[in-house]
């Protein structure tokens, strides 16, 4: 072994910060901001046009000079979308930058963070499968199964324990474990089918979503339905077995502790992927399966492992949904698993990126609710605006292209307009080889 170079090693602080200031991460942030701005510009036009088409008694906004009236005010829409999602921290229109009465612990921000928390789990679920080169569309099904397992296990164990805080902690742990195991099992099925029967995981996970949703529905309908309930749902788990709202209003369905657990999972998964042997196996299989095989990675085992882990995270998302949001399992499970796919892609399948991506989704969700409360803008139009934002954020390559073309960011690629192919900088002097 060569003598080690003590100075050449980054300090502990530098190593901790490195994943956040990594050039590609910084670039991604810049791109995301640019994408949101561009989507707002286009969204403005859409809001104006639909504001012309819609009929209303008084114009929300009148165009200067022309005197044309519009039913929806685009500025208001976006202000409410972003400001409202946070509970109006910014004093728009009033003097001063910040709203003096604002506290972070408001209902709107709680709703935003609630959505963020749930999407952290589903986003991580999809991301870990992606890193192993597997396209897990089945997070939704894994979440449904995990949620049901959580609700049923907590309901089953609760009568055995004396009601109280300690029983609450025990029940939450049992519920989460049951959710993770059930979700993990549901993920392991397509993993095993892929590894040992060569079944495409995209197909099997989609199919298992239907199986999960319908089996769970029938089970609850026929066996576990709460007496006298008008909807297909289980009984509520005891109050003390749910996450405490703590600081945030009860109606926001948000528990800070759940968000913290989510953040811990982000860190843990990052560590797993980047700093463990199994994580190395997993991501090497994802980027270059032939090299992983050469490096002694058992492809079949890795596939099953990754899908099990992915399913367990989806199942945990289901646990959080039951124990934080609903308090019971009910048939109308929101599309958290599907949104998790978009969250993961926005995050570049990087666990750390899942946090901002899930938060963006949370903001869009919370903001959309606010727009519904505060303005006449139809929810369908808000959905279009949300879609636009996600669409633009999800195509970073488009913005890289713009960046290259205008010379913003990155080295200028020689004389513009030449047919020079993109060269990788470094030692390769255009030498080809066998």
């Amino acid at each position: 072994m060569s003598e080690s170079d003590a100075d050449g090693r980054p300090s502990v602080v530098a190593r901790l910060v490195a994943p956040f200031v990594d050039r590609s991460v910084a670039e991604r942030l810049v791109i995301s901001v640019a994408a949101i701005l561009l989507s707002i510009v286009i969204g403005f036009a859409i809001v104006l046009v639909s504001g012309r088409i819609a009929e209303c008694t008084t114009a929300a906004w009148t165009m200067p000079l022309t005197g044309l009236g519009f039913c929806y005010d685009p500025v208001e829409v976006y202000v409410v979308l972003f400001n409202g999602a946070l509970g109006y921290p910014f004093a728009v229109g009033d003097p001063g930058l910040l709203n003096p009465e604002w506290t972070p612990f408001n209902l709107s921000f709680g709703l935003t963070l609630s959505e963020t928390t749930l999407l952290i789990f589903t986003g991580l679920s999809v991301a870990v499968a992606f890193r192993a080169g597997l396209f897990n569309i089945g997070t939704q099904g894994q979440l449904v199964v995990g949620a049901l397992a959580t609700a049923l296990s907590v309901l089953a164990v609760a009568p055995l324990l004396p009601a109280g805080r300690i029983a609450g902690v025990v029940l939450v742990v049992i519920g989460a474990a049951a959710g993770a195991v059930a979700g993990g099992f549901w993920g392991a099925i397509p993993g095993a089918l892929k590894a040992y029967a060569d079944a495409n995981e995209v197909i099997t996970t989609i199919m298992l979503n239907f199986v999960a949703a319908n089996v769970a529905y029938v089970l609850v309908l026929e066996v576990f339905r709460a007496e006298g309930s008008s909807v297909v749902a289980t009984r509520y788990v005891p109050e003390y077995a749910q996450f405490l709202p703590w600081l945030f209003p009860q109606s926001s369905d948000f528990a800070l502790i759940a968000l913290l657990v989510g953040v811990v999972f982000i860190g843990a998964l990052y560590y797993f992927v980047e700093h463990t042997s199994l994580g190395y196996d997993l991501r090497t299989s994802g980027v270059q399966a032939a090299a992983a095989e050469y490096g002694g990675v058992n492809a079949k085992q890795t596939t099953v492992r990754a899908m099990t882990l992915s399913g367990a995270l989806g199942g945990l998302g289901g646990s959080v949904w039951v124990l934080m949001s609903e308090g019971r399992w009910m048939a109308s499970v929101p599309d958290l698993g599907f949104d998790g796919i978009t969250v993961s892609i926005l995050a570049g399948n990087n666990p750390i990126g899942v946090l901002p991506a899930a938060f963006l989704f949370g903001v869009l969700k919370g903001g959309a609710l606010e727009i519904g409360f505060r303005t006449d803008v139809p929810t369908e139009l808000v959905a279009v605006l949300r879609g636009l934002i996600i669409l633009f954020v999800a195509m970073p390559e488009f913005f890289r292209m713009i960046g290259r073309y205008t010379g913003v960011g990155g080295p200028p690629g020689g004389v513009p307009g030449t047919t020079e192919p993109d060269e990788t900088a470094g030692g390769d002097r255009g030498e080809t080889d066998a």
Partner: protein
Amino acid sequence: MNPAVHLDGITKRFPGVVANDDVDLAVERGSVHALLGENGAGKTTLMNVLYGLYRPTDGTVRLDGEPQSFDSPRDAIDAGVGMIHQHFMLVDPMTVWENVVLGNEPTTWGGLRVDREAAREAVVELSERYGFDVDPDATIADISVGEQQRVEILKALYRGADVLIMDEPTAVLTPQEVEELYGVFEELTDQGKTIIFISHKLGEALSAADEISVLRDGVNVGTVATSDVTREELAKMMVGREVLMDPATTPQEAGDRVLEVTDLSVDDDRGVEAVSDLSFELRAGEIMGVAGVDGNGQLQLVEAITGLRRPSSGDVRYRGEPMAGKTRRDRIDRGMAFIPEDRQERGLVMSYDLTENAILGSQHDPPFAERGRIDWRASRDHAESVIEQYDVRPPDADAEAESLSGGNQQKFIVGREFERDPDLVVATHPTRGVDIGSTEFLHDRLLDLRSQGKAVLLVSSKLDEVQGLSDRLAVMHEGEFTGVVDPATVTEEEIGLLMAGESLDDDSVEGAALHEAASEEVGGEETASEGAATEEVEGEKAGEGIDDTTAGDEGVDA
């Protein structure tokens, strides 16, 4: 008279790198010019400038004295420059003539219909004029690599090329096909065509070219006439120092059996048998070479040995232990090192940096991993030590594998595998794409491993390499060993015949050795090992003489 091609002060910069620095190159009409240099010397970049793929940062390209400004290869083709790439750009299921006219088909009905008759006629006429023996109606998939290369040349000629650039034209050919290619060169230059070919092989440049220009670090260090330069002088120009032309092997007793392969059959991905009933054994302190044209089962053989492919029948034993059912992981743990043929698919994870690549295969083992946690500090140290010892450039453990040139990628893989402290090294084309200086070093390392008592299975298409390093040399053809010969006494022609699947004449000494080897395969293990041992001693006696008989060896590359 103006030279056909005149590159006048060409400089080409890439971000951070000067690939060509003020290169002057003049090539006379009707001559063959070799562009010689190590990997990364800037040969291909220079030719890409001439072919219009790159715009030079500085300098002028002149054809027949006329300054040219190429925006794309299309402009270069229009000006009469054609390029034949190392990897052929042919459509396998289409016929020869279809491939030749592809993209420039003669048409009738106002451009709506391809005039097949005229097209075929033009191709036939062209191949007759240059004496090419190619069936215009044959499908590309059915013809040999040498013929495919001629189709590529026809393609360039059909597009009106006067200057032909060829990138490493002999890399994929058998010795016989190389000879035929030289014949084609003559035919072309007789008719006034100009040929520039890129090579990093001295022998090839010396036997085929009229003039040789040597590039080193992007600079033209000299243009010499083939008639007044020696191999040694050329090698010195390329590397910038004296080079030992041949590895010095010393006689050595073989030790214990490390690898025993018995009646091994292996299928390829399509389920076709690629290795048929192969048996051999390999002892500690022995290098066994496997020569042969690529695609004759070498890949499947090494994959079956190293645990990447399941044999369809037969047995592999490693240090006496049957390997059936043992995973790739098990075999790595037992000390098998493997330099794979496809370094960019298998040997390296292209998007990982060298630190991450340094532990590929050892990601579960100390000192790189403890209790499931990877010690990135240890792997960085390891990466840096490999980089330093094996002269990997750029010397940066944070560089991504894909940013390295092929030769440097190769050096890194070889270094990583050699430093694994293996008992068995399975090396497939270990020096492919690696420059002379580093090749010399890697050869020395292989011989070090041998003297340390390691067993080495060396698969290479470079004849001089397998001949110079091996204790025994097996020639593989269509999944079988057509002969196991003594590398010291066998001639190049004989190896060529074996590579083509023909057996040797029994009267010759080598033929006797071959005969013996062949009967061994039938006879069983004990006789096989004895035969091998005696053969080897003879080989070593004669091995001393190999240094004197170098000329021409290196030019041959299957």
